[in-house]
């Protein structure tokens, strides 16, 4: 039994803080991409997840994902309300306190459903969002996290599929990406799309948000080593290289096709690369990280460019970046993974183990089927109970005023206080 390690503990605490910061980063990334009348509504959908999901995760989310395995499907209720989750280590991370492992996992649970919101930006009713968020977090995020990391059937437990997912390619990105597709299909297009030019209202905000995501991703992937060690270094290096290469993977075709290397393209490409490297970060060589990142940027660019032809309104390209980038990463992990980098991992197709590629495929298909169906059911139930889409008038007015009684950018004066 390895001993508790102060360096490991310090790094995972720092990583948890880095991952926490990704959610407000995402809020700015998405907030800049929408019209000014929807910027607060969009930011709020991410920021509010920090509130609701954190509390739900403390109550049931954590234990359903990481409690004692029940039938390889779900965690038991032994850690409900964080009972027994204290300073003593836990089997998943034997060198750090259990509560440190838990708070790191909590930040992943927060950002995953927040990712979905970009797909249905500018038209979701806040009341419906709150209910969707709560149900999805408990009924979709926790089970899938359990399958992959909590001792469930897709992971490395006895008899499991043994798919590789270093930091959440399936659990976070494919899971959120396919749920985003369900939301788009259920809720339909924004008013005026695609005839009107619906343009981003604050591009520097988009770049700032993407930069915060990149920064936080060092904790997301580097922290997933669950220790301050060489593996964390491997994941950290792979993460940076993939994001860098993905900028090129997006900009080169964009520059050729549209004669314009755009800043939003560079930022989106970087995020696509970060998504793609997430499952692979602790299993691949640096050169493979560059290839995976480049592929993530390139494939996501092609997919996002095809969106008008596909005829659906994936408003901020959650399917195009997180679902597509997540699949690129999950499958390429099955190609480029090598035991030379991580003994606890597996060899991929390139190293004579084509079976790993199939395992990756199984994990992708399982996540896609479960998350899509469960998300559809949650949307249906939420819609019947509180409604998921704003009224046409509210959509026209914008989410900021109609859902939150606020305006993001105000001129001086022009009002009096009602209660003073």
């Amino acid at each position: 039994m390895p001993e508790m390690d102060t360096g490991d503990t310090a790094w995972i605490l720092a990583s948890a803080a880095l991952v926490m910061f990704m959610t407000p980063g995402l809020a700015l990334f998405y907030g800049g991409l929408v019209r000014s009348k929807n910027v607060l509504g969009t930011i709020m959908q991410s920021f509010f997840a920090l509130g609701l999901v954190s509390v739900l995760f403390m109550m049931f989310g954590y234990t359903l994902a990481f409690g004692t395995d029940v039938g390889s499907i779900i965690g038991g209720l032994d850690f409900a309300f964080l009972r027994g989750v204290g300073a003593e280590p836990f089997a998943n991370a034997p060198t750090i306190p259990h509560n440190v492992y838990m708070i790191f996992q909590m930040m992943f649970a927060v950002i995953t459903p927040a990712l979905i919101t970009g797909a249905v930006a500018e038209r979701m009713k806040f009341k419906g969002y709150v209910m969707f968020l709560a149900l999805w977090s408990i009924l979709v995020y926790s089970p899938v996290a359990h399958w992959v990391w909590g001792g469930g059937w897709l992971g490395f437990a006895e008899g499991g599929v043994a798919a590789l997912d270093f930091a959440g390619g399936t659990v976070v990105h494919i899971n959120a990406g396919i749920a985003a597709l369900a939301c788009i299909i259920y809720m339909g297009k924004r008013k005026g799309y695609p005839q009107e030019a619906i343009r981003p209202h604050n591009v520097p905000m988009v770049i700032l948000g993407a930069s915060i995501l990149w920064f936080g991703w060092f904790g997301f992937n580097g922290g997933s080593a669950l220790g301050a060690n060489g593996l964390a270094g491997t994941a950290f290096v792979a993460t940076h290289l993939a994001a860098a290469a993905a900028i090129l993977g997006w900009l080169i075709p964009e520059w050729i096709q549209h004669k314009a290397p755009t800043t939003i393209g560079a930022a989106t490409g970087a995020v696509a690369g970060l998504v793609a490297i997430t499952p692979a970060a602790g299993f691949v060589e640096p050169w493979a990280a560059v290839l995976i990142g480049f592929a993530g940027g390139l494939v996501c660019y092609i997919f996002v460019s095809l969106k008008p032809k596909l005829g659906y309104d994936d408003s901020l390209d959650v399917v195009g970046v997180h679902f597509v980038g997540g699949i690129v990463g999950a499958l390429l992990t099955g190609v480029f993974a090598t035991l030379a980098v991580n003994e606890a991992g597996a060899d991929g197709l390139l190293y004579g183990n084509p079976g790993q590629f199939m395992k990756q495929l199984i994990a992708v298909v399982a996540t896609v089927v479960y998350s899509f169906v469960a998300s559809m059911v949650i949307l249906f139930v939420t819609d019947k109970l509180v409604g998921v889409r704003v009224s046409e008038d509210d959509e026209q007015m914008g989410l900021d005023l109609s859902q939150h009684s606020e305006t993001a950018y105000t001129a001086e004066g022009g009002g009096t206080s009602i209660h003073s």
Partner: protein
Amino acid sequence: MKMVSAIVKPFKLEEVKEALRVVGIQGMTVTETRGFGRQRGHTEVYRGSEYQVDFVPKVKVDVICDDDQLAQVVDAIMTAARTGKIGDGKIFVLPVEQVYRIRTGEMGPDAL
């Protein structure tokens, strides 16, 4: 009195302001605005999709002057704002009924 309302290219604002000062204009109102004429719009690219943007950023300069200053003012703006390329803008001249200076209550040309 006349109001001269000129829509010009934003980067020409400084030159227009200086030219108006030279002909004796002591105040003006500037508004950032958008619009299109024969220049039409331009193309913007967001995530692999191209958009036609009709409204081009412009600056509107409003100046009030005495009738006998009008020719000079129009000429100053015309010269300063011209690049010779499409999109240089327009100058509108409108009659002004009255002008008041709020601080003193002065009226007419004295209030300019």
